[in-house]
């Protein structure tokens, strides 16, 4: 397994897109931290960029990469290797390099300018989001054979998680405004890893007061250590579940 991860990583790290992504994150985060005199404010600006860019790059890059390595998969599937090993190696290679790019591009500036618990949570959720969206992309690519269709679905998935989901939640909130939905909202937010990360970071920033009564409920749930642990578990589930489903599918896929 190590050997295949090695080949995948070498292949990706030579890729110029990966370098561009790292440099882009590095430029953005450095300029934000240097522009704002209060680095906590800088963190907030960075948060919005990270929550948009990281999932987009992760899901698009990994789905394109998996489609482009169809030949690689086909070649290795006829060799004495387990299908599962092959698939998990691709996953580890892709997510490893994306995490590395994120860490160099955004993680190091965060650690330099804002080495607070909030900064660490942001770093952690950025890494988790990278891995989660690789996992989601793997599930989408294994289900869809056609490359153009698959990449389209990847873009739609990103759109869903970063825009449509919030719209749906708003819609539900207004429709059922007469009912006490505060607790239900906590459960709903678990269904979207991007929202979950946003809530986690915002709560750590102590600006939850801006979110009104719901913010207080959120604070009750996510602000505590057990809430943090629970949301960490949920994020982990977001990695494991799509990946597990994709492995199952890949094991029986005709190459």
């Amino acid at each position: 397994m190590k050997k295949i991860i090695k080949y995948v990583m070498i292949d990706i790290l030579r890729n110029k897109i990966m370098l561009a992504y790292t440099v882009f994150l590095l430029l953005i985060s450095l300029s934000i931290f240097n522009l704002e005199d209060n680095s906590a404010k800088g963190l907030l600006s960075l948060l919005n960029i990270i929550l948009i860019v990281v999932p987009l790059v992760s899901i698009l890059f990994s789905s394109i990469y998996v489609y482009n390595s169809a030949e690689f998969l086909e070649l290795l599937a006829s060799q004495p290797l387990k299908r599962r090993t092959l698939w998990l190696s691709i996953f580890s290679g892709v997510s490893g390099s994306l995490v590395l790019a994120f860490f160099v591009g955004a993680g190091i500036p965060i650690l330099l300018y804002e080495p607070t618990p909030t900064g660490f949570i942001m770093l952690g959720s950025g890494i988790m989001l990278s891995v989660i969206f690789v996992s989601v992309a793997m599930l989408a690519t294994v289900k869809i054979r056609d490359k153009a269709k698959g990449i389209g679905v990847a873009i739609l998935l990103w759109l869903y998680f970063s825009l449509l989901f919030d719209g749906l939640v708003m819609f539900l909130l207004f429709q059922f405004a007469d009912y006490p939905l505060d607790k239900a909202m906590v459960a709903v937010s678990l269904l979207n890893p991007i929202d979950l990360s946003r809530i986690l970071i915002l709560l750590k920033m102590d600006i939850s007061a801006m979110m009104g009564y719901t913010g207080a409920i959120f604070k009750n749930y996510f602000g505590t250590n057990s809430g943090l642990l629970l949301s960490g578990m949920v994020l982990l589930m977001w990695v494991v579940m799509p990946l597990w489903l994709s492995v199952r599918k890949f094991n029986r896929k005709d190459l």
Partner: protein
Amino acid sequence: MIIANNVSKKFGKLKALDNVSVTCNKGECIALIGPNGSGKTTLIKTILGMVVCDNGFITVNEKNILHDWHYRSNIGYMPQIGRYPENMTIGQILDMMKDIRSKNDHILDEDLVQQFKLNELLDKRMRTLSGGTRQKVSAALAFLFNPDVLILDEPTAGLDPVSAEMLKEKIIKEKTKGKLILVTSHILSELDELVTQVIYMQDGQLHFHKDIATLRTETGQQKLSKAIATVMLKMSS
């Protein structure tokens, strides 16, 4: 050595394999013959585990291939259309395969690498290669690890006559070592000197599996191409 038992596979509505049962033993050289789309490549791919069959099972060395992946270390496979990572060089591909498959006691068989002069092309990227050179890489990879079973899908298609002859000689050499060889080809004349048995497939069904000597006496034809033609005529009438 390889036993397929009532193997069926559907691609959508198309029955690619329909209740195929085959037994292949060591030392045999078997030709898989049949019209285009008769399921030859699908059968090969199910044996390799690249296509998972809907029904039935396949055992290699008495182990069901569904639960055992080590068996592939005994197989050398040359695909009909070799697809390789486009931006890797020949050298990198060879190194990668050696890295993945090598065991300490393995003696590498680099005959074909040398005969095809692939050593001079090690820096060439796969996307720049011609179809024939790709075939040479596939052939060299299939023989590289001295496997007990060789599965060759249209081995000489796209090769120049000299290289095709080299490959044929290599196949004969491996046959005399008592390996199991499965070949598909549409050029029946070149199978004449190779094969000991013939499997004929049509529309996903296995029509017969016979010794070549039996086939010759039954049809009264010495040449394989004529013999097969006689059989095909008989079937259609």
